């Protein structure tokens, strides 16, 4: 409130055609002093805000890089496991084929039925392991979900960084409240993440809905 009064008084001083030798207006000096102290305090407050905001802004690209590295590492690790699983699957396919051929040969040669039974049991065990390998393969789809979450987080961080830079460079910390009204893509992504946590369907629910549309 001191600022407009001081400005008005300053205006008066400029406009009034007072003699130069008149005694200084002590009240005006007091108000000008108050205004100077207010500006000084504001500048200090601004600088106190700027440092942490700047530091946070500088750290955000690092956080984004770490997240993208995390995505790459999980992707590479997943491919590594898949490579091994596929190698075992290929081996199993060959062993399974050989077992069948050997079983046929032994049956034609009238080898002991007990021995043939053992070979068939071996084939069944291989089949069970193949199923486990397929389960391992499908379980690796976690990487896709991780990657999608990371992508959303990177977008959020990018948006936050942009907003922080705006605060530092353009608006200053006193307009933080105004920034809240325009939350943009980051807010949408956060909502999506939250929504995914709270309302995502499992396959059973999806199937229920599909049934209602005649998917039987």
């Amino acid at each position, binding site marked *: 409130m001191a600022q407009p009064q001081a400005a008005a008084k300053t205006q008066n001083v400029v406009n009034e055609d007072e003699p130069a030798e008149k005694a200084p207006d002590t009240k005006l000096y007091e108000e000008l002093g108050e205004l100077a102290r207010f500006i000084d305090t504001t500048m200090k407050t601004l600088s106190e805000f700027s440092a942490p905001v700047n530091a946070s802004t500088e750290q955000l690209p690092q956080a984004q890089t770490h997240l993208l590295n995390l995505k790459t590492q999980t992707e590479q690790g997943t491919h590594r496991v898949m490579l091994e699983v596929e190698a075992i699957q290929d081996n199993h396919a060959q062993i399974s084929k050989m077992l069948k051929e050997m079983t046929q040969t032994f049956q034609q040669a009238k080898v002991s039925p007990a021995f043939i039974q053992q070979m068939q049991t071996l084939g069944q065990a291989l089949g069970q392991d193949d199923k486990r390998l397929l389960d391992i393969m*499908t379980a690796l789809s976690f990487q896709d979900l991780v990657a999608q979450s990371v992508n959303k987080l990177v977008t959020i961080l990018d948006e936050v960084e942009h907003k922080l830079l705006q605060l530092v460079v353009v608006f200053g910390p006193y307009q933080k409240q105004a920034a809240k009204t325009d939350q943009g893509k980051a807010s949408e992504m956060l909502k999506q993440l939250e929504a995914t946590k709270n309302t995502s369907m499992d396959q059973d629910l999806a199937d229920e*809905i599909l049934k209602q549309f005649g998917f039987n």
Partner: protein
Amino acid sequence: MPADPNMKILVVDDMSTMRRIVKNILKQLGFNNLEEAENGQEALTKLKADTYGFVVSDWNMPVMMGIDMLRAIRADEKLKKIPVLMVTAEAQKENLMEAVQAGVSNYVVKPFTAETMQEKINKIFK
């Protein structure tokens, strides 16, 4: 009509790990004629250039989303009858409704099992 094991299947996903998983499952189910695309746009180009019997697609992809690709397929006289199975983490009811309205053949929610995928393929080609 049961699925033809020789039909050409297009697997569409921007994540290489998911393409590999879906292809592996399809291979284990007896399908060996498998192609892949990284997004809806690339998929449409491939679909128009060749004859495919089945499309397995993700929803959330850059360049062109799976749902937009599905609409483009259903709007194309030559492609509209190709069955499209959506395999997606977009697990909101609204997404499912949107996919049904766009003409999806069936819908699998990630994470999924090989059994679920087999069941859905059997239903599509029964």
